[in-house]
């Protein structure tokens, strides 16, 4: 299924915290990231991909137009999706994640805005966020490949009764066998082995400089 990247504007994350951010000792455990699509009409969301950075749970809310004339409403489409099975340990902390339309709680048609709500309950991490956020909508359907008619539907031509009486094989059977052989030869021709080379020198020479630090 093809997909098309939707240009988006990711606003800076806002921490939700009770009390004065500057004086309180604890770190915020909830962040909100707003994503807008300034130059795009409401679209159907196909996929969201991002790189996690120590976020434990993710909720997503979308602003959706249900019908042409009613104002857009905020709907929760993903609730507390777990990115880190153990928020205190590194598992899943820097993984690449994809979320698809079929994983969402509501249908993803006519989206105009996105709000990501990130939660990290563990006090061990200094910061958390998601990076490299990319939103995709469904791309145009790939054009159907048209096979030549004779390949997919051999036209049953009239069988002259004469042939059968002479004991020759049934033409439709022969044609299907030939078809299979052709397919096999095509497959063998198309495949190529990735052979191991095994040479470590360059034209027989292995006289080296010192090792490089890159």
């Amino acid at each position, binding site marked *: 299924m093809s997909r098309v990247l939707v240009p988006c504007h990711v606003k800076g994350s806002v921490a939700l915290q009770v009390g004065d951010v500057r004086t309180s000792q604890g770190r915020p455990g909830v962040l909100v990231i707003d994503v807008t699509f300034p130059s795009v009409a409401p679209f159907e969301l196909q996929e969201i991909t991002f790189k996690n950075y120590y976020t434990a749970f993710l909720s997503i809310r979308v602003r959706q137009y249900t019908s042409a004339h009613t104002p857009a409403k905020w709907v929760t489409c993903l609730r507390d999706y777990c990115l880190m099975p153990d928020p205190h340990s590194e598992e899943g902390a820097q993984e690449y994640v994809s979320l698809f339309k079929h994983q969402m709680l509501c249908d993803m048609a006519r989206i105009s805005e996105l709000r990501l709500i990130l939660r990290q309950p563990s006090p061990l991490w200094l910061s*958390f966020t998601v990076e490299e956020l990319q939103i995709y909508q469904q791309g145009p359907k790939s054009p159907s490949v048209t096979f030549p008619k004779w390949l997919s539907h051999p036209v049953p031509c009239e069988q002259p009764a004469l042939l059968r009486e002479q004991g020759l094989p049934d033409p439709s059977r022969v044609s299907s066998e030939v078809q299979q052989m052709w397919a096999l030869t095509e497959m063998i021709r198309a495949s190529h082995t990735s052979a191991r080379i095994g040479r470590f020198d360059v034209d027989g020479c*292995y006289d080296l400089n010192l*090792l490089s630090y890159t």
Partner: protein
Amino acid sequence: MLQEESDLSLIIAQIVQKLKGSNLYSQLERQAWASLQRPEIKLESLKEDIKEFFKISGWEKKLQNAVYSELSVFPLPSHPAAPPEHLKEPLVYMRKAQGSWEKRILKSLNSMCTELSIPLARKRPVGEQKELLNKWNEMGTDEPDLSLFRPVYAPKDFLEVLINLRNPNYENGDSLSFRTHLGLIQVPLKVKDIPELKECFVELGLNIGQLGIDDSTQVPPELFENEHVRIGQKVLAEQDSAAAQQYIRQGSPTALRAELWALILNISSQPEDVLYYEQLKTNVIQHDLLVDSLIYKDVKLTASNDDYYFVFEDYLYQVLLCFSRDTSVLSHFAFNSASPPKSYIRGKLGLEEYAVFYPPNGVIPFHGFSMYVAPLCFLYHEPSKLYQIFREMYVRFFFRLHSISSHPSGIVSLCLLFETLLQTYLPQLFYHLREIGAQPLRISFKWMVRAFSGYLATDQLLLLWDRILGYNSLEILAVLAAAVFAFRAVNLMEVTSLAAAEKKNHLRELKSMYLDDIVKIHGLFWLF
């Protein structure tokens, strides 16, 4: 559901791509062509008939074993947006730490090169080549002057690097709080706790028979041993890798071990493999590498001084020197956090077409490296088979013991698992050792890095390595290390310094310990 299906097709595509370049593929092709002459293969049902033929003749089983082998070794395909470095190691700070560590090793090797004025690689003159070929089977009798060479690093240097590993996003406060790790490892990797270990190592439970314990003289063989041997023979007759891996979790009978390991690692000595080994031997004869001297030095310092392994000295050279020239090992760097050192042909600095890896297999041996090979010499006597087994063991398991990664079988996770087990279940001992400045990891690190080779008696060691193969994981090393401390807890509570803890016979003479003593009385069964 869609996601799982597409993941599955991706895995299948990857495995097919990998197998296409293998010997098995050409063999299957040849067999398929040859089978066309058989009367039961009909043209109209060609595909099904050939599949049936493969099933009957045992080729399907070989293919199954190859697929199972690929699944065991290769990590699952990662997210399409993830760069190749992510597959090597997902955590950025660990990648950086591994990079700095490698840079230190390269600097050390380069300075050795310039100080001793010895080139990294040198083509041998014809006379020298002939001489080496003549004494190929007795390289141990050679006594080259290795006094100026020093190992590039030893396990304790590596331990210092691991101790200093820090996650920049982690609260590494100076003041003690609930967040502080009391052990040496300060990174919060996920390690299994006892209930998870119980679930994972279910075949090591008290109610299931084990070789090495339930085949001792006091236990009549009818109870467990005979049946276990019979099943082992059946598994070998079926030539099924997955069944062998499951079977070996309860230990392998000595007579069947060599074949079982070869089956699990999917090693079958074909003429092509023997030829490949001979080609590597030719490469050793033609070029002399600085790394060879490091290998010589390591063998002389470690294996040659060991009561069990000194007889195999010549084999060790034959395997390790060839290992350094084997470019097929480079493919494992796709999922190893380490990277092979790079250099250029003299005079062609910076030109990519003259870039080469050094050594050709990208692995720089450290002090004790030869101990990975030594125990295998008891099982395999034919050099090319011994070589193949060692190479497969290295690219599946041993590389994780000397590179910095977050993998559950990586050395960092093993160290953290060991410390966590000890802290949780022997808190008094842990506290006491910490107070006298003898952090337990300082003692057990060298055991785990070498997978206990040289620290356990060989028959016990091979039983341990049976379990590594059976569970496809190195976590058992950390569990055994914790069990050893538990076994000697009473004595250890009495020591007053790190040196005393190490010197006293309690821990030094691991060799006299039997796994069944440790396991039965205190160790693994204690955990359950």
